[in-house]
């Protein structure tokens, strides 16, 4: 059963660095596991806790938030906001009895196509190991 598990992962990518990094991974034809689908936002700071929690409650198996490296955010400090919020979110998720490892924040610059592919592949592997989001089997949560 576990063998066939194809996770559903949502990737929130900031427009300026990480989305461009993903484009570069594409242009280099790097092989990326197909479980993650992308939603482009202007900045990692756009991802509010509500969106993350609702996404998990809707049944996503994992969420990747990717933004510019610290100091490189197009809007100067958006990724610092994201980083702080992320630390808190991990704790909140735990109280929902969802493994906080299902949420990942990564920095991917516009030049890091290779890194983008690695981040997505490693995260996908991790989610595969974690198995389906328990929310799907325990609807009372």
């Amino acid at each position, binding site marked *: 059963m576990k063998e066939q598990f194809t996770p559903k992962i949502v990737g929130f990518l900031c427009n300026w660095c990480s989305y461009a990094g993903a484009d570069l991974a594409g242009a280099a034809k790097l092989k990326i596991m197909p479980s993650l689908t992308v939603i482009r*936002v202007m900045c990692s*700071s*756009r991802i*509010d806790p509500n*969106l993350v929690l609702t996404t998990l409650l*809707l049944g*996503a198996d994992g969420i990747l938030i990717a933004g510019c490296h610290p100091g490189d955010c197009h809007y100067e400090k958006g990724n610092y906001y994201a980083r702080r919020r992320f630390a808190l979110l991990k704790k909140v998720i735990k109280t929902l009895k969802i493994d906080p490892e299902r949420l990942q924040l990564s920095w991917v610059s516009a030049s890091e196509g290779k890194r983008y592919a690695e981040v997505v592949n490693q995260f996908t592997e991790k989610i595969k190991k974690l198995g389906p989001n328990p929310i799907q089997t325990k609807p009372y949560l």
Partner: protein
Amino acid sequence: MKRIGVFICHCGINIKGTVDVERLTEELAQYPGVAYIENYIFMCSEPGQKLIRDTIIEHKLDGVVVAACSPTLHETTFQDALEEMNINRHQLEVANIREQCSWVHDDIEEGTRKANLIIKTAVEKLKLNESLTPIFASLTKRVLIIGGGIAGIQAALDIADGGYEVILVEKEPSIGGHMIQLSETFPTLDCSQCIMTPKMVAVNKHKNIKLYANSELESIEGFVGNFKVNIKRKPQYVDPDKCTICDDCTPVCPVVVPSEYDEGMGWRKAIYIPFPQSIPATFTIDTENCLGFNPIACTKCSDACEPDAIDYDKKPEYFEEEIGAVIVATGFDLYSVDNMAEYGYGKYPDVLDGLQFERILSATGPTGGEMYRPSDGKVPKEIVFIQCSGSRDPERHLPYCSRICCMYTLKHAKLYKHKVHDGQPYIFYIDIRSGGKRYEEFVQQAVSEDGIVYFRGKVARIYKEADKMIVHGIDTLTSKKIEIKADMVVLAMGIKPNNSAEKVISNLKLNTDENGFLIEAHPKLRPVESLQSGFYLAGTAQGPKDIPDTVSQASAAAAKVLALLSNDEISHSPIVAIVNEELCSGCGICVSTCPYGARELDEIKKIATVNDVLCEGCGACISVCPSSAAQQKNLTDEQILNMVKIYSYL
């Protein structure tokens, strides 16, 4: 419901190779909202675009999804196609099924499945897209430059030559900044005043430059393109229109104080002109030291003044100016030598800082360019220069490298050698940083030709013995103790933001880094702009730099301003934040979150507002809003969640 057309591109075989476009077309034809679906070999080609345009009419579409390459490549192409058919460009969405899908997957099943999801999310987003028009604001084609050092002067001349009016505000009685104090300049050793004064004169003469000297910015309001500023001109007590610069006043003035221009190495009177080439060329009375404000005590200058130019009752004047952009060029000050007690500064008169040594070297300086030391007027035969004084010492002093001290110290040693042929300069250094053009050659030449002795290491202490300063240090390359009996010690002080810049920078609400230097909008790609629209940075106010870099940055800032002013209106992306007035509680969290100052509280309605022109659309305020009152146009929470739903329910 919106009638949406979906156009799937094969991109030759780039997409078609991994995505079954025919099957996809069939599958998605049934998807709610899709009124028409088609696939074509190259959507971006003219026939591809024509297909879109024709279908818009034929099938009465009011929105289009193009499933193709990354939106960074052809989004605007397709938006233009829509606009040609009188459909708002925000009714287009690109589904990236190439970079995000066909190029990174091998398996056609997987590729087709994923492309299906990606297209559906684009359709979902498009369903709720609003038609938007760019935000336009009028533009005042004048610019304010704060600081009349070489940075401010260069930017002012470039912009004025470009045909736009410049308001140049300098806090001191004369423009010129630090460069006018320098003797000769590395690496070419051209005389600083010779290259600086023509520029100062040009500023004075230029019909497009309005100079406010001895003035400061009082207040600013408005936003990019439309600022109103209030400038305070401090009284100089000498009417520049009447003053003939005859200099009959200074000989009669009884008050003698250290000269700022000579860094305290020379003297001036309480009525003075900072230096002979001052621009504007007028005398100023220094109220702190003048006795004449009590007419019983002294009226000597006023009595001597034939044209009757002196008016002790002069009050500050205030001027309103309207401008469209601001360049901040407030420059630097030396890191305070008072922090360097271990090197005997302040205790021993022959321990000088870099700028004081410049004045001694300068032909216009207190010694007329002759090398005498302050304490007894002797010619110093051995001088110790200490680099990195105050720099690169995160524990006690400035953490950063001041970038210019290696080079100016070398210049000092060289110029000293040119004046005292049998003298011996020693330089203590941590590293020699000579990264500029022809800087390394300048270093090599000085070491081989001028007999400068370098010691790698720091000076431990300095004390006085008879008329010598004993300098103790360690050469870390040889581990040998060094002891030099020096006649003079020069501290190559690091530089920091100008002491009087802090107030104006906070007035302008600009961001500074932990050291007080202005922060650029992007460290690599937008180095002369501030994050706040309409503000530009030039010179050492942004970070330590030498003259060539200062001038380059000033010209770059001028180019940015010229580009801005060449528009008749300023347009701005309409993807901005909005506030739902019903939900907003006026808590103000968004106000402190916004990096651009686009958020304000409306005191009457008690709700938060967005200034469309300032908002850059990052979305930071949306995620902090506890009441979900803040939303981003065309990327609302609802839109994002609708997209998430496609991905999550399988």
